[in-house]
């Protein structure tokens, strides 16, 4: 182990850096969501409960009246959700980092970390979001939740495939070609997969006609912002931790004089 210390850190070392970066970024995203998103969630739940007093809720339905967790608890649980989700995403990013660095040794850890976080934001968040934008409570038919969950997950996978197709396009054009040609090939590969997925995947029109359009728009912006904070945080923190780690290892490898 000491022999390889300066070239490639062990998997568990990288994993811990990813989990830590993800946890911190998740808590930051939670803080953003609390400030920017919670007022819209509250407003949507008020609409939902006003509607529920008119129509008797179906048995076994998602009813906020006799909730297991109070609204205060759910607002606090936001940080638990984004913290755990962030840690999981940071750990997966670290795993992808290790798998990729074994195939191609790169000199700049920070660059790889930031590129991976950017790829995840584009493929796993932005591409799915434009097809299936986030919805506040009171929007969405409970009867289609399983179908919506499966199509959403598929869209996340397709978004990542689109990013991968973009990187294939970039590499298919030789490095001696001008940058604009490589960028065009990357955009072409990415857009091809994205457009085909958007056409093939089913759409859901479940926003009630009387739901306030500004509230829907504000909620969706806050939701997208939460994911942007999360992935920007993971990328920057992971890059910083790996950079710090590499410097420490390099210093330890030098004979102390």
């Amino acid at each position: 182990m000491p022999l390889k210390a300066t070239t490639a850190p062990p998997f568990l070392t990288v994993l811990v850096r990813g989990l830590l970066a993800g946890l911190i970024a998740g808590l930051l995203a939670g803080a953003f969501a609390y400030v920017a998103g919670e007022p819209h969630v509250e407003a949507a739940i008020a609409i939902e409960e006003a509607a529920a007093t008119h129509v008797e809720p179906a048995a076994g339905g998602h009813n906020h009246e006799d909730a297991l967790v109070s609204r205060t608890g759910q607002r606090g649980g936001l940080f638990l959700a984004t913290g755990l989700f962030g840690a999981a995403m940071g750990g997966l990013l670290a795993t992808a980092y290790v798998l990729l660095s074994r195939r191609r040794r790169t000199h700049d850890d920070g660059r790889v970390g930031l590129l991976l976080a950017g790829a995840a934001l584009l493929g796993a968040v932005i591409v799915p979001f434009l097809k299936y934008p986030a919805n506040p409570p009171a929007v969405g038919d409970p009867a289609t939740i399983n179908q919506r969950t499966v199509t959403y997950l598929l869209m996340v996978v397709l978004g990542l495939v689109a990013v991968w197709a973009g990187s294939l396009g970039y590499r298919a054009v030789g490095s001696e070609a001008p940058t604009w040609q490589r960028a065009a090939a990357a955009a072409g590969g990415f857009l091809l997969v994205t457009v085909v997925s958007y056409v093939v995947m089913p759409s859901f029109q479940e926003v009630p006609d009387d739901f306030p359009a500004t509230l829907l728009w504000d909620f969706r912006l806050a939701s997208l912002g939460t994911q942007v904070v999360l992935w920007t945080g993971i990328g920057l923190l992971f890059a910083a931790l790996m950079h710090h780690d590499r410097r420490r290892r390099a210093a330890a490898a030098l004979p102390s004089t």
Partner: protein
Amino acid sequence: MSTSTSSQPLVHSAGSTRLLWTVLATVAVLSLLTYLVAFDQGAVSRSGMYLHELMHDGRHLLGVPCH
């Protein structure tokens, strides 16, 4: 047996196999964690709807389909 080129030093197969299992176990645990936050409705967590409701606002604001 080895097909590695001389320019690229590969980790020997015993270390590779162990790394593969570590990676697979890590991905499995992290996927389970993601599932618990984003999709579980008590089926796996055995908490009824408690965890689902506790993380309700986070799920909506992370953009995951909820209800």
